[in-house]
């Protein structure tokens, strides 16, 4: 053992930095390690550190315990399904999952309700479209013919015929107006008739 060696070991025990080569030699040589330990103990005695916090053989105990420890082989043998199952099983007990799960259940119920209502409405759609029973008949203009003319109209007389039809519409409009006028004055006419029968009555206010 060289003096030079002991110098840097002594320095190391006084918390001086070590070079890489020195550290390597320290790690490889048990003799150097024991020397360092001795130096540390000397320092401790000089600093009046009478009690060491750890027993002297602490490092050896740890090394021996590691030697006795069985080796654990970590493999990916579990299938993804069982892993998810385990994950969910763990998470289900966790506090965060419960509200989320409740929300999911509510959303599912709402979805079923919406789909159900849509399906329920599908047959009802024909109810919404106007039924022929309540449809008013399409009529253009003043009034439409509901029975066609029984006489055939030859092309030569078509224009003349149209003119006559127009004339007739005019006359029918006049008759319709006359009918409406009759309905309007009917009550008065009947009142007048009654008055004539009963004798004159005082006028209403």
């Amino acid at each position, binding site marked *: 053992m060289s003096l030079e060696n002991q110098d840097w070991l002594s320095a190391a025990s006084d918390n001086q930095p070590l070079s890489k080569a020195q550290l390597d030699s320290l790690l490889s040589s048990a003799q150097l390690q024991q020397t360092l330990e001795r130096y540390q103990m000397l320092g401790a005695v000089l600093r009046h550190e009478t009690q060491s916090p750890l027993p002297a053989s602490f490092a050896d105990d740890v090394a021996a315990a590691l030697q006795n420890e069985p080796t654990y082989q970590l493999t990916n043998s579990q299938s993804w399904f069982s892993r998810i199952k385990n994950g969910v099983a763990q998470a289900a007990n966790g506090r965060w999952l419960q509200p989320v799960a409740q929300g999911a259940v509510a959303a599912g119920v709402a979805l079923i309700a919406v789909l159900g209502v849509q399906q329920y409405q599908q047959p009802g759609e024909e109810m919404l479209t106007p039924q022929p029973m309540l449809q008013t008949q399409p009529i253009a203009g003043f009034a*439409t013919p509901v029975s066609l003319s029984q006489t055939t109209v030859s092309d030569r007389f078509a224009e003349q015929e149209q003119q006559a039809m127009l004339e007739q519409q005019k006359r029918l409009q006049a008759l319709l107006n006359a009918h409406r006028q009759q309905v309007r004055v009917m009550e008065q006419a009947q009142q007048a008739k009654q008055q*004539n029968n009963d004798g004159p009555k005082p006028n209403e206010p």
Partner: protein
Amino acid sequence: MMRTSGVCSAIVLMLLSALAQAEQVGWQLFDKVQYAVKHYNFDTSFVVLKGSKVDTYRWLHGQTAGQEIEHLIPLDTSGVDILRRDALVYYLLTDRPAFVTRASHIPELPALLFEDKDTIRQLYNAVAGSSSVMSGRSAQLLRLTAKQGGRYHYWLWLDAQTGFPLRIDTLSDNQNALERWLVTHMQISPELPENLRALMAADLPQPADNSVAAAFNSSHQLTWLPEGYQPVAEPASIPQLEGSLLSYWLLSDGLHQVSVFVQNSQRLPTQAYRDGATTIYVQTNAQLEVTVIGPVSIDTARQLAAAVR
């Protein structure tokens, strides 16, 4: 044997009483609708749908102590303002003096809402139907079904709360809707509408008393009448047709009116027209042209035209 017949008659009795009760409920609803249009202060708008033709009106009604006023305003350009104060109806024309007549209701409104219930009861069965939602209000259906064929049916939807009519459909014999009367806006208020207050006090002309019925010395005869109809004795004269009209009858069943005109033939084909629920039927032969106008089925109109001798 006795027991079964007893049970049967009990069932029949129960059915009959149920029917009678349904009928009673129907007429109660009818009372409600007639009361609503006569006694409430309201401001409404309604449309009359006749096929593709739509007429829009505003209808106001008000009542104070002892006086009733009603105003019907067509919202289309062609139309006449109609005002009723108690038993006088004024047609407020723009270019001529107002035409005044005596009537207990405006004839341009559905007569069903105003005619005497007993008259209507003779012609119709009333059955309360289901309720539905109409323009955001709860509506109760009331079906008036004609007792005799050839007369139109009515379906009324009433506001469940007030009894005010929301919709009236006129249906033909085979349940085709011919005309629809539909309320688009309705406001019932405890007070008389402001613009009616002014009309209540407005100075309006008196009815002409000289419109005494002119007798038609008819040379023709009507040999058949539809069931329930009676000719109105001495109908008013029709000055604008005096030159061409040979005979005229006005028929009424108390709710509907049908006119039968007889004129000289124009040698035009026999034809039928329809204006909403009003049928216009023209039948022509070598000498005469008979025109029947009224809310009757085409079959009835044809029979009526054929009955002129």
